[in-house]
């Protein structure tokens, strides 16, 4: 073992590649970075324009309409606590970060999922990549993200997209694959073209599963906020991170609880959105 001591230089190769990309594509990255930054600032601006109490009431009403009275009460109390603890702005920042990252994941993930589901060869190729993306420790993505986008909210979002995108793609593929073959046969028997079968049958029937993927994506993005804060993303993660580095147990818990409240709210709301009228009977 000692004698050969040949080592594949993965680290060197990746370092060099990242450097090369940084040098050659820096203007594209800068533009992307600016765009994302502006989007997030706009969302934060709009949300902070609304009086917190008004916003809490609006959220409670949404929870009541979509979920239940209990969820509405939870929302009312939960967000009042957030306001009272003084985490309102970080909460808005975190929400905006998650929102933008989820939107980008959906815009990329659903088309990639649909295309992969249509080509068996392609999905053989994409699935291992997705597994890789999901199991790679998320911290690792931060390093090249910093290189490309420097410090701030954007590298955090990029890392969060890489981490949460696979769930959208995977569940889109799964949802389309799960459509019963009897129903596909019905489609064929009426002479549907490939795109008609896809858009009139496969995608609508896959919708509940795709929505579950989006729900998962939101939860994963939310779990990335702390990690994202290590590269300078603002929000609740930054509060937790500060508390950890300064060993302030109480503060850490406070910020943690705020994340939990936000998570529960987003989870229940999106879960309800994914229950679709025609599926009420449970027959598919």
């Amino acid at each position, binding site marked *: 073992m000692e004698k050969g001591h040949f080592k594949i230089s993965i680290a060197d190769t990746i370092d060099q590649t990242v450097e090369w990309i940084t040098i050659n594509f820096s203007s594209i990255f800068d533009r992307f970075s600016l765009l994302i930054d502006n989007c997030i600032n706009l969302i934060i601006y709009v949300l902070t324009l609304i009086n917190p109490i008004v916003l809490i009431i609006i959220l409670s009403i949404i929870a009541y309409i979509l979920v239940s009275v209990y969820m509405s009460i939870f929302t009312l109390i939960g967000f009042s606590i957030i306001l009272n603890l003084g985490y309102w702005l970080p909460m808005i920042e975190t929400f905006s970060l998650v929102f933008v990252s989820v939107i980008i994941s959906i815009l990329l993930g659903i088309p990639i999922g649909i295309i992969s589901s249509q080509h068996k060869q392609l999905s053989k190729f994409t699935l291992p990549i997705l597994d890789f993306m999901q199991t790679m420790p998320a911290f690792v993505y931060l390093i090249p993200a910093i290189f490309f986008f420097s410090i701030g909210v954007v590298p955090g979002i990029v890392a969060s997209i890489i981490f949460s995108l696979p769930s959208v793609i995977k569940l889109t593929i799964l949802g389309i694959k799960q459509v019963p073959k009897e129903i596909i046969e019905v489609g064929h028997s009426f002479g549907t073209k490939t795109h008609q079968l896809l858009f009139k049958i496969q995608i609508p029937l896959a919708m509940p599963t795709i929505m579950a993927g989006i729900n998962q994506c939101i939860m994963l993005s939310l779990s990335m906020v702390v990690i994202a804060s290590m590269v300078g993303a603002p929000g609740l993660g930054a509060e937790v991170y500060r508390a950890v580095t300064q060993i302030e147990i109480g503060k850490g818990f406070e910020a943690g609880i705020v994340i939990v409240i936000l998570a529960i709210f987003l989870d229940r709301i999106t879960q309800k959105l994914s229950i679709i*009228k025609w599926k009420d009977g449970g027959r598919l």
Partner: protein
Amino acid sequence: MKYESCIIGLKNVTKDFSIANRKKNTNLKENHEDLAVSDVNLNIYKGEIFVLIGSSGSGKSTLLRMINNLVIPTEGEVLIEGRNTQKMSHNEMLTIRQKKISMVFQSISLLPHRTVISNIEFGLEVQGVKKSLRIKKAKESLRLVGLNGYEYHYPHQLSGGMQQRVGLARAIANDTDIILMDEAFSALDPIIKRDLQNQLLDLQSKLSKTIVFITHDIDEALKIGDRIGVMSQGKVIQVGKPEEILLEPINEYVKKLTNDINLQKLISASFFHSLTSEAKEKLIKKYNTQIEKLLETVK
């Protein structure tokens, strides 16, 4: 009037599902029991209801699906109005499926995410028919199956019998010359089944389509079939009018199939009325002797 023009022709049609396996494992010898459908020759004429009957696994569904090419025949020719489906381009096949042949399935066949009315519209929508015309036709055929008022229900809100009727309405709305029905009524209770059979006969007298109908139920076959084809182990072993199947069964299998028919249903079946009194007597006599035999064994 009938039997003048052949609309579906099957020539030496064979389907072997194991052919892909055999290519991998060339040692396997040709085994005829592997054939789902084996060398079938059959002509189906414009305007008739042709019933395929036979035990489970005899290849009925496979044969039916080869008519609209959902299953591609391994050998032989399927002719739709004289044109070989195997020689059609993909687009021609789509047109055939859109405008010439529609299909009614046994079970889960309604699109769960669409309301009743938009399920019925589906075929027309695929063809690119205008929305207003689609709705009009869909409503018409919904009325034909007696389900008006259920336009905006979802399939899961309907009973099994209603769902079957929607499936039938969907096929009718397409206004194709040929309707393929794969055990369309077999999951239903006897009363609904009888209603639907009557509805089908009624519709047939109005619309005069060509219908290929699969069933396990000999009474159903006798009731609705202009002609009956009996399938066993991938082959069509006998084709004939109901009375021919009953009076001149070609072998033990067909004899067994026709042994325990329901006499009352037989007498109420429409083909029975059009028989000569001689044939009627013959039929009744046949089943009379059976009843007498039965009585003897009871004694």
